[in-house]
């Protein structure tokens, strides 16, 4: 296997707040290979979005403090100067955001916003940049791109705008594309179109994709591996099929239980997980999920953070009592 594009090791993000230090990301690690799609799934407040903003160097420090290690093609990103970061952003790693209605600048044309990173990173200007922008718009499935390129964002529909955002992300052929809840604000049909588009583009361009979502249903069709995140930690990580078929963490089980799935071996009634996600200013000492977990022993679970351990081939779970595994 080739070297990973991105190696994240023990990534931690804290924020100084009025109430105290908020531990938002508490040591997550993963590798991302070229052509791979990795999904990070979690509820809002699980730290998933913050963790990828840290990869982009987009967290203002202070109030944020980022620790750990992020290797991009073997080079450490954390600790880069602002100028060095700017060379990576948009060039090596690009990002698409949740709400296409607000993520595009309303007073700049599509073409302006699309060609901006090209001039910055590729030195592409004028007609060359415009030509490439038209090709990109075509690539992301926007009809009559020659006309649309001079439109303002408000003249496009939500789905179209998200396509423009994707085109913008692809503008400089990044190795890594991060989609942060990129379909959440869209209607269901458009959601499917956008996920398919990213999937298809990935095969053509060969980039790696990190897909951030709260919706396990969205990633089922496109992800290779899934990391389930809760309270700033990974609870479980596995190939997408294994995770859906045999979840080894009570939290994953809970998430899947709240998901309608035709034909799957699930209880018919949708279950919700009782309680609320943990307060990042007052993280539980043990497993972050213990206070809401039906399997908690009230002792080890609340006292010790479970380590991520292998529970099968390419399948890890951070639980003292992983489901379906008989040991201590």
């Amino acid at each position, binding site marked *: 296997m080739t070297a990973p594009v991105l190696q994240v090791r023990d990534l931690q993000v804290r924020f100084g707040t009025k109430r105290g230090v908020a531990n938002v990301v508490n040591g997550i690690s993963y590798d991302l290979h070229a052509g791979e799609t990795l999904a990070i799934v979690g509820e809002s407040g699980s730290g998933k979005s913050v963790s990828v903003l840290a990869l*982009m160097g*987009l967290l203002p420090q202070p109030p944020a403090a980022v620790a750990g290690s992020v290797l991009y093609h073997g080079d450490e990103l954390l600790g880069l100067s*602002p*100028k060095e*970061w*700017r*060379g*990576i*952003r*948009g*060039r090596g790693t*690009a*990002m698409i*955001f949740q*709400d296409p209605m*607000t*993520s*595009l*600048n*309303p*007073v*700049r*044309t599509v073409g302006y*916003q699309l060609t*901006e*990173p090209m001039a*910055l*990173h590729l030195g592409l200007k004028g007609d060359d940049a415009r030509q490439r922008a038209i090709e990109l718009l075509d690539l992301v499935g926007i009809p009559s791109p020659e006309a649309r390129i001079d439109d*303002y964002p*408000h*003249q496009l529909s939500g789905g179209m705008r998200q396509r423009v*955002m994707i085109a*913008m992300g692809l503008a400089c052929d990044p190795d890594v594309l991060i989609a942060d809840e990129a379909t959440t604000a869209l209607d269901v049909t458009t959601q499917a179109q956008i996920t398919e588009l990213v999937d298809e583009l990935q095969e053509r361009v060969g980039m790696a994709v990190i897909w951030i979502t709260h919706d396990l249903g969205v990633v089922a069709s496109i992800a290779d591996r899934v990391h389930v995140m809760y309270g700033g930690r990974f609870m479980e990580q596995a190939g997408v099929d294994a995770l859906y078929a045999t979840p080894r963490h009570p939290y994953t089980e809970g998430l899947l239980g709240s998901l309608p799935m035709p034909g799957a071996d699930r209880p018919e009634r949708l279950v919700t997980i009782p309680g609320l996600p943990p307060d990042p200013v007052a993280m539980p000492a043990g497993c972050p999920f213990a206070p809401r977990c039906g399997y908690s022993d009230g002792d080890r679970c609340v006292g010790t953070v479970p380590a991520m351990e292998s529970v099968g081939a390419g399948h890890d779970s951070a639980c003292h009592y992983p489901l379906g595994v008989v040991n201590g």
Partner: protein
Amino acid sequence: MSGFLVRRILQMLLALLGVSIVVFALMHLVPGDPVRVALGTRFDQDLYDALRERVGLDKPLIQQYFSWLGSAITGDLGVSFRNGQPVTTLIMERLPATITLALAALFIALVVALPAGIISAVRSGTGLDYTVSAASQVGISMPDFWAGVMYILLFSLTLGWLPSSGFAPFGDGIVEWARHLILPALTIGLISGSIITRFVRSAVLEALNQDYVLTARAKGLSEWQVVRRHVLPNAWIPIVTVVGLQLGFLLGGVVVTEVIFAWPGLGRLALTAVKDRDFTVLQGAVLYIAFMFLAINLIVDIIYARLDPRVRVS
């Protein structure tokens, strides 16, 4: 765009019509007989009747209004009760001083407000931001008549650098012109600047908090590039509005500042007319100032539409 323009012009004309009614009504509510006041001690019944007839006061009010409005449209605002001069001439005489002061004050205001507001927003929460905010707070609360008097005390009476009053036309040489202009322009400009600073700060801050700013940063733009290419083009839209309003006020004549510096502008013309009960002059001046104010508003709206594609392209 053209539909928008037509609508705005119609709105302005409607407002202007309302303004003319208010002005006319106000002036005819003035207690006392203006003609009698104008004649003063030289009262003579024949002269009185003749004068009344000449200014049309013997006709019904409605008729008076329409004949006044009709003349006003052609630029004839009647004659002064005091000295018989055409009101339009009196206004035109005051215009150079008023426009000079307004533009100079606006220039000072913008030179102060744009950098201060932008930096204060970009560095919000820092000591610099607090300093700018505190200074603008003082500026907004500052009575202009007090500021003006303080400047005179310091720069004219104590240091003797600048004249304490009067207007020197440009023809008298640029140095004299500027020396007379500095203090009144500073008095009103710094106050306007404080108001604009607060607007610039909040407009830039609001734009900085938009999602598209994160998008721009994610492209790898530098912070300054983000501000210049993405934040400011959005922030200009509200800023233009407040700058236009300020210009409207300044062009209407800053009464108090003009009084302090004996500046021969429109504001003082109106004030003198009040004291002299010269109601044709007051009527004309007020109508003219309101017209100018509305015209500036219209121009602001047009610029606004140019800046905002959501208004421009519909």
